[in-house]
Structures are given as structure tokens and as C-alpha cells.
């Protein structure tokens, strides 16, 4: 693709010629802010000038800690126009665990050696401890408080660093993924090819509630809309979590043709949306419902297609995909015009021999499709030798949008990038040219000599009454001095379930795992909701869960109340004040 040779500022420049497309923001009252692309660029130029006056130079890494809002884009594109590198991080909107948030954010600021943190007034009230620990050279700023100044855009080259996104590493600490303009634009062009072509004068539109600090939201939604150029309607993620119906209402109201989400979002819609919330909703416009970023459960896909057909949802729209931050985003797409495919494979053969053999009563896996144009897949054994189709092994990918590496981490990079191939850390096999995944290499449960996927065990407990869907963790560990691995199952209860029900839930979970996976958990524990550690994108962190459980540190989050947040804000003010004192003393 010849268009690969360009940069994100060039895409913004081109989009600025299209006033009929742009970004729309939906808030709780469903009123929408509308920013056509020319205005987005104008505001970005203003942001660029202010950042340059503050001292931001080409190549600087600029952390963005902003909620879904036009202010995010003022900063994101402003940083890019200044030739600097945006690093979107998650804002502290989740309830609970504010101390943990500060520690993780400080760590991420240090890893990318951020020059400055751009935020808004509200978020800044809670950022003090993180900023004080990381000490970015140009401090923590709010764009409209910076001096207004003429922008001097510094165009970069395709091989320059475009942005850094944190991998949502479920097994290890998040790593900063360094992506060049060439890689990001290559990914954008391939995704954009899936945006349905305009019919007549209608501008195609997308809708997304996905966080902007996450690849699927930023690279998967914003950048194709920019390149198209089309219109993207954005819903703040915390609003979607509280009111899932808003997602479907927004797709219907703004006639969105494309909207992606991870598997859990489709499950949340099934569980939480009431029929009466969908009065007047028409989902027939939704032609591509991408489903990726976490394991895709056939039960959820089927349930979603059946339930929402009444409101015009077409089962052909449901499109399972596979991708990862290290490849900028997508690697495979299933057929966008056909219903999803799932097949059943013999459980015993998969677990013992690592072979995919059709079996009518076997475990059901969803096909994740074929590589995007110019991408290639390989399945290899532990020694790196390529395996035949139908054999389970490590999944390697090659393509035009792979990362340059983990930012400033040559050793970690060498561990996953070799001879142009990226080791995804995922296990899977090819069948009829389509990709099927069986689990993460590091998460595999090894029990009595057989390999099991934790998903197989975790999905089984979703059907237990009182268990919180998608909030179970299965890990195996070897107790000291013991001869065999043990299976530990930790399950969060639903919010409305009393503690007296926990023993019953534990018994039924053990039964469900026996029935579905043929495994006998050695220990089942039911936990208060919110106890299991998660990544910024909400994925459960298995290794960290096991570590905390063994250390006796698996505690429920403290309920956030007005008084607790006030205390956190007071600590934040104190941290900022100490920082100022220190720098006054130094100067």
C-alpha cells in the first residue's frame, strides 16, 4: 500500500478539508458535543503552540491523563503537531484503589521518561502522588492554563516514533509499546478498508465507548475515522459500564455502521440491558460489530445475536478478530459479511497431545479469521520449528504495523521480536486457514501432565447463580514440598449477593467446573466484587492474583466515599505543594 508512507499529522491535515465529518461526544444526558475535523485541527494547533511555549520539543514523550473528551484530542493532536510523542494513560475514574493507581501511574511515567503530564483540572486533583513520584521535567499541566502562543508545527518522518501505548499485559507488568508513524498508518489503512464505503452523500460513522488509552479505542476507532475521513461518536467508558444500553442507543441514534468492543461488553449488554431501555432502537445500521482484545466466548456471541435481533441486529455483523498492542492492533479479521464460525474440538486431544481434532461433544472455539493484507501467521513449537495446521503451538505474526520494540527496553524487545517475527505469547492453531486460540503461553494450567486453558475453567462458572460473569480466575500452583500442581479457582460474587450465599456459590462453581472441563478444583474461594486485580483495560491479571493470594494480600477494595476521595485529594495537594517547595529550594 503506497499510502503507508505518511504520518499522523498529515492525516489530520487531510481530514481538516472535510467539515462534514468529525468527532461527536455523548454525555450522560445524551447531549452531544460536535467537533468537525477542521475544528479538531484548529484546536490542536492551539494546543501545539501552548505546549511549545511550555518547552515541549520534538521527540519528547508527553503523558496524557484525560477522560474521553475534546480536551483529549486537543492534547493528543497538539503533541503530534509539535513533533512530540503522546503517551495516553488511564485517568483515575475507577472507584477504589486510588493508592494502587498512583503507584502504577508513577511507574508508567518513569518507564517512558515523560517530559510533562497533560491533564484537566478535575483529574489533577488526584494526580499529585503519581506526579510527585515521577517528577516530569515540565510538570503537570492543563492546556488552557498554559500561555497562548503561535504554533510551529514540526512535521515528523514516517520512521519517527508516533505514539507509545501500554500493552495491557495480563501476565506481566504493562510494557510501553513504541509505534512509528509508518506502523500506525499501515494499521489504520488496513482497518479503514473495513469501514463500509459511503453510499450517496452519507458520511459513514463509527461509535465507540472504548477508552482512548487503549489500542482498540484509539487506533481501532479514532484513526480510521480520521483517515476515512468519517464521523466517530464517542461515549465515556465509565458511562457505558454504568449504562450499557447507552452504547446501543447511540449506535441507533447516530446510525453508526461500525462499532467494536471486547467480549465482556457484549456479555454486559446481555446481563444488564432491560428490554424497555431499547424502545425505538434500530440496530440494522450496525454492519460490523468487531469483537476482539480478549478471548471470544461462543455462548456470549450467540446470546447477543439472538437477543438483539429483535432490534434489527444482524448476526452477520458479529465479527471476531484477533490483535495485540505490539502489532499496533489487529492481525486477523474473520469474514465481515458472514456470521461468526465456531467449531468443536476434542478436549482430550487438545489437552494431552496439542492437536485439534473435530469432536461433536468437544470444547467449542471461535474462529478468529485470516491475516489482514500483508500480514502472516506462523505456529511454532518450543524450539521454534513450524508446526503443521491443526497442531497447537506458539503464535508468531509478521506484518507492516509491528512495534519498533518496547520503549527503551532492548532486552524485553529481543525476547519477543526476532527476524521480523513477533512472538505474541498466545497459543493456538490454524484450521482451514483460520486462526483459533487456546490460551496464553504463560497462563496455561498444567494439571496431571495435561495443558488446560484457564478460560475453559473460568467460563464454566459464568452460569452459576450469584457469580459475577467474567470475573473468575483459575490458576495452578505447586505447593511447597508437594508433588503435584493444584487448581485454585477464585470467583467474585455479584454485588447484590449476601455473604451467607458464598459457600453455596463455591460448591456450585466446583460442580460447574467438573461438568464443563472435567477438572476438580482443589480450592474454590468466593470474593467480594472488585477484589481481583485487573489491568487498565479491565482484564484479570492471573499471575498477580496468585501472588497476592499466596501472600495473603488479596483484599477487597475500600469503598470510595466522598470523605475518602477528599482525603485522596488532600494527599494530592500536599504532594504537589512539596514538589513546589523542593524545586524552589533547588533554584
Amino acid at each position, binding site marked *: 500500500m503506497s499510502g503507508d508512507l505518511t504520518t499522523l499529522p498529515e492525516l489530520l491535515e487531510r481530514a481538516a478539508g472535510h467539515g462534514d465529518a468529525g468527532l461527536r461526544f455523548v454525555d450522560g444526558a445524551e447531549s452531544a458535543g460536535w467537533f468537525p475535523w477542521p475544528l479538531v485541527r484548529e484546536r490542536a494547533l492551539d494546543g501545539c503552540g501552548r505546549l511549545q511555549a511550555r518547552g515541549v520539543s520534538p521527540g519528547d514523550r508527553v503523558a496524557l491523563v484525560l477522560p474521553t473528551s475534546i480536551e483529549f484530542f486537543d492534547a493528543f493532536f497538539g503533541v503530534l503537531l509539535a513533533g512530540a510523542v503522546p503517551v495516553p494513560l488511564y485517568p483515575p475514574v475507577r472507584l477504589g484503589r486510588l493508592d494502587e493507581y498512583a503507584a502504577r501511574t508513577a511507574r508508567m511515567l518513569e518507564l517512558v521518561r515523560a517530559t510533562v503530564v497533560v491533564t484537566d483540572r478535575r483529574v489533577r486533583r488526584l494526580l499529585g502522588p503519581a506526579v510527585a513520584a515521577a517528577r516530569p521535567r515540565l510538570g503537570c499541566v492543563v492546556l488552557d492554563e498554559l500561555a497562548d502562543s503561535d504554533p510551529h508545527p514540526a512535521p515528523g518522518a514516517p520512521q519517527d516514533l508516533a505514539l507509545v501505548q501500554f500493552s495491557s499485559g495480563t501476565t506481566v507488568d504493562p510494557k510501553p509499546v513504541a509505534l512509528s508513524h509508518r506502523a500506525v498508518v499501515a494499521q489504520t489503512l488496513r482497518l479503514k478498508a473495513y469501514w463500509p464505503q459511503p453510499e450517496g452523500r452519507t458520511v459513514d460513522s463509527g461509535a465507540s465507548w472504548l477508552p482512548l488509552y487503549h489500542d482498540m479505542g484509539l487506533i481501532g476507532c479514532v484513526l480510521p475515522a480520521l483517515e476515512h475521513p468519517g464521523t466517530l461518536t464517542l461515549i465515556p467508558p465509565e458511562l457505558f459500564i454504568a449504562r450499557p444500553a447507552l452504547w446501543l442507543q447511540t449506535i441507533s441514534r447516530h446510525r453508526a455502521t461500525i462499532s467494536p468492543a471486547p467480549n465482556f461488553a457484549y456479555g454486559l449488554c446481555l446481563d444488564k440491558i432491560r428490554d424497555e431501555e431499547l424502545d425505538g432502537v434500530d440496530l440494522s445500521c450496525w454492519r460490523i460489530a468487531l469483537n476482539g482484545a480478549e478471548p471470544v466466548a461462543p455462548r456470549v456471541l450467540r446470546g447477543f445475536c439472538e437477543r438483539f435481533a429483535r432490534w434489527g441486529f444482524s448476526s452477520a455483523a458479529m465479527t471476531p478478530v484477533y490483535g495485540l498492542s505490539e502489532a499496533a492492533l489487529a492481525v486477523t479479521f474473520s469474514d465481515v459479511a458472514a456470521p461468526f464460525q465456531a467449531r468443536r474440538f476434542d478436549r482430550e486431544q487438545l489437552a494431552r497431545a496439542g492437536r485439534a481434532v473435530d469432536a461433536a461433544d468437544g470444547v467449542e472455539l471461535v474462529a478468529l479469521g485470516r491475516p489482514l493484507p500483508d500480514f502472516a501467521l506462523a505456529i511454532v513449537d518450543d524450539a521454534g520449528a513450524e508446526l503443521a495446521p491443526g497442531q497447537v503451538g506458539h503464535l508468531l505474526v509478521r506484518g507492516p504495523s509491528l512495534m519498533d520494540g518496547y520503549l527503551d527496553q532492548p532486552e524485553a524487545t529481543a525476547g519477543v521480536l526476532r527476524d521480523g517475527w513477533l512472538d505474541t505469547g498466545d497459543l493456538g492453531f490454524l484450521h482451514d486457514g483460520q486462526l483459533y486460540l487456546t490460551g496464553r503461553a504463560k497462563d496455561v494450567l498444567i494439571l496431571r501432565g495435561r495443558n488446560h486453558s484457564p478460560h475453559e475453567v473460568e467460563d464454566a462458572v459464568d452460569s452459576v447463580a450469584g457469580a459475577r460473569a467474567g470475573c473468575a480466575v483459575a490458576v495452578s500452583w505447586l505447593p511447597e514440598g508437594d508433588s503435584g500442581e493444584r487448581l485454585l479457582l477464585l470467583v467474585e460474587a455479584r454485588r447484590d449477593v449476601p455473604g451467607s450465599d458464598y459457600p453455596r456459590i463455591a460448591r456450585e462453581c466446583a460442580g460447574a467446573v467438573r461438568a464443563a472441563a472435567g477438572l476438580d478444583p482443589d480450592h474454590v474461594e468466593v470474593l467480594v466484587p472488585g477484589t481481583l486485580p485487573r489491568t487498565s483495560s479491565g482484564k484479570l491479571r492471573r499471575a498477580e492474583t496468585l501472588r497476592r493470594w499466596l501472600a495473603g494480600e488479596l483484599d477487597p477494595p475500600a*469503598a470510595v*466515599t466522598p470523605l475518602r*476521595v477528599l482525603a485522596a485529594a488532600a494527599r494530592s495537594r500536599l504532594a504537589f505543594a512539596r514538589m513546589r517547595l523542593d524545586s524552589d529550594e533547588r533554584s
Partner: protein
Amino acid sequence: MNDQEILEGIGEVARRHLGFTGELRPGQRLAEDLELDSLKMLTLAVEVENRFRICLDPSSEARIATVGDLAAEVGRQLERRSDDAP
């Protein structure tokens, strides 16, 4: 200031600063029913302090889970303020 006036004052804060429409009821839970995240919770707390000219005490062990709990805590602080008055 009676309980009803306090409740109305909190409602006014929620409408002006958090974009709420309609009335608040004492039984509504801040996190679950009003869908307040950490940032909105902070906005509510700070603006309630401004509205009633009180200081909520972050080190207090009071458990504030509902609109009613918040109103009661505001009432306590208002009482303390009038006790301190000369």
C-alpha cells in the same frame, strides 16, 4: 437548616455540577444508583462543602454510601459550626 433543606441543597449541587436532572432521594446510593466515579464523587464533596460552607472531615469514620448519609454528615457539620459560633 432542616433535613429537607439540606437534601434540596445537595440536589442543587448535583444538578449544577454533575448534570443531574430531577430530585435526589435519601435512599439513593452514590456509586451504584447515581453512577458517581471517583472524579464525580470528588466534585460532589467539594461543591457540597462550598454550598453549605462547611468542611467535611476526611479522617471521620462516618460511612457515606447514600444521599441520606451525606445529608446527615452535612447536618452534623452544620451543627458543629453553630456550636463553635460565639
